[in-house]
């Protein structure tokens, strides 16, 4: 089922949680709502579910106005961050709950319910836990049961509020892959809220980036990562190095150095104040020497594990930089803590400088 959100505005007292948000969620997609805490993503999810009422705007489910519909008429499955399993019921009863709550006329028989519960428990690979109580399960197991419970009523939409937020890193990674797999099997329109950019980029078909109650950008993970529309998106999707400078001919003048850039979103005018960004792997380190060009910096830490070496540096005025080099490159440079070096960005992305842009 497709979901459309039109001009939704929601305030809590003086705080604007959602400011005129309009979005489309096409049928069958898995979409991530990504943003820092307090950006309004959970509020939007709750409004779609009907758990919260918008001050203005519309929610259309399959093109049909939903604001007059009660939560239980919307047929949404909702998965909560803290599972919200019924602790006085066994796993079986939790999953069966939705079916048992159906009006008598359409309620499945006890045998049908039993079959379906076991099928769902097999789907989440936890059939052997049917007689346990939620308090006897691990966090990851609880969340999978919560998902099975939500799926039991055959919802037209699945909404997940930070589903892996309360789990540890390893389980989180496992469940992420598992959720993607499950979605590929069921193809149910799903929206999940997260503040973890890696999770959003890895799992979702499409990513919606939100900040301060507004949508910053929507697109495929590939699109938003390689073509961030705003400084906020650029900064949120990965580690960054920030340079303040001015447009100078073909390059950006940062301090005394003239650095080349990629042209930016819409090339700023000559002399305009800009923000320039480079990812850690888009900067090279050169040894300090006669006639060396680039930004002067001093090595403060070298971390080498995995395929690449991460170097933390300090520029002029204590400005921190982070650079990622291949192991070979790092070995060739023979970096030592305290060593003076030069930084040359291979790719700079420039944005026009705006007062108060959310960096």
């Amino acid at each position: 089922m497709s979901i459309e959100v039109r001009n939704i505005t929601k305030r809590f007292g003086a705080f604007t949680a959602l400011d005129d948000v309009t979005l489309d969620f096409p049928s069958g997609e898995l979409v991530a709502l990504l943003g820092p805490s307090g950006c309004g993503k959970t509020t939007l999810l709750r409004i779609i579910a009907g758990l919260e009422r918008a001050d203005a705007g519309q929610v259309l489910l399959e093109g049909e106005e939903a604001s007059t519909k009660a939560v239980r008429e919307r047929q949404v499955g909702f998965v909560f961050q803290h599972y919200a399993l019924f602790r006085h019921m066994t796993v079986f009863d939790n999953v069966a709950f939705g079916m048992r709550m159906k009006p008598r006329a359409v309620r499945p028989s006890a045998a049908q319910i039993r079959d379906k519960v076991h099928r769902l428990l097999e789907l989440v690979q936890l059939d052997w836990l049917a007689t346990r109580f939620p308090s006897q399960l691990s966090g990851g197991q609880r969340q999978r049961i919560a998902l099975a419970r939500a799926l039991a009523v055959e919802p037209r939409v699945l909404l997940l509020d930070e589903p892996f937020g309360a789990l540890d890193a390893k389980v989180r990674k496992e469940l992420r892959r598992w959720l993607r797999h499950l979605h590929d099997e069921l193809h149910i329109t799903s929206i999940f809220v997260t503040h973890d950019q890696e999770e959003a980029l890895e799992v979702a078909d499409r990513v919606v980036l939100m900040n301060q109650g507004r949508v910053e950008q929507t697109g495929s993970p590939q699109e938003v990562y390689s073509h961030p529309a705003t400084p906020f998106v650029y900064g949120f999707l990965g580690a960054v190095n920030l340079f303040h400078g001015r447009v100078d001919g073909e390059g950006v003048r940062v301090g005394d150095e003239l650095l080349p850039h990629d042209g930016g979103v819409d090339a700023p005018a000559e002399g305009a104040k800009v923000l320039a960004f480079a990812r850690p792997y888009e900067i090279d380190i050169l040894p300090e020497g006669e006639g060396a060009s680039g930004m002067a910096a001093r090595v403060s830490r070298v971390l080498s594990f995995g395929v690449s070496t991460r170097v933390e540096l300090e520029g002029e005025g204590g400005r921190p930089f982070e650079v990622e080099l291949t192991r070979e490159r790092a070995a060739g440079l023979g970096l030592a803590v305290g060593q003076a070096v030069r930084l040359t960005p291979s790719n700079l992305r420039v944005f026009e400088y705006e007062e108060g842009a959310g960096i």
Partner: protein
Amino acid sequence: MSRQTRVLPGFGPALGLTLTWLSLIVLIPLASVFLRAANLSLSEFWAVVSAPRVVASYKLSFGMALGAAAINSLFGSMLAWCLVRYRFPGKRLIDALVDLPFALPTAVAGISLTALYAKTGWIGQILEPLGIQVAFKPAGVLVALVFIGLPFVVRTVQPVLEDLDVENEEAAICLGAGRWRTFRHVILPTILPALLTGFTLAFARAVGEYGSVIFIAGNIPMVSEITPLMIITKLEQFDYAGATAVGEVMLLISFALLLLINGLQAWAAKRTGRDR
């Protein structure tokens, strides 16, 4: 006992100390009641405890105590719900007021309730034309027992409700349960053990209540005499053996009822997976 390492050591001394304490404070005084009554022969004992006036008082005392505990369970839960789930002006004040029946001398409660519910009182004069009389009737006993038992249910249910996430109700509603079924299948089972505890405490307190009831009950023989009053009456007539005999019966009935409720509680806990 398992040989597990405990954070707080000393199972032996702790159990010994608590048993000694329990004996001194509860068991020995109760045993002395039975010793006192043992001065009576069995037929004398039976004559005392089965006198029509005494039997009528059992019915009134236990009936009204159960009724008051039931009423308190209903309204106490509602009050706890309001205090936990809603924000409203004066909430802290109401929260503090709940404990007042604990602190107030029961005689004060009895006198003020009587003044209110007497034919000329504020509430009594409204009820009078409707043909309802509260003061000096069995209904008065009920009113007094509801008053003194209120804090128990509120204070036992409140923390459990605070612990129950709103998300639980939202999950139930998303799964298609209406308000009533959400209450019936999600909220009630969660608070049931605490509710039973509150009911038990309110009931136990009501059975033993004396001070507030004697003012409002009117103490009409066979109609509005409570069992504790029967005991006091016998004491005033220096009939110590008779008083303890009645006390003994009261003790046994109370103990049986409390045991029953405890069993019910264990059953509820087991059924809902809180049995450890």
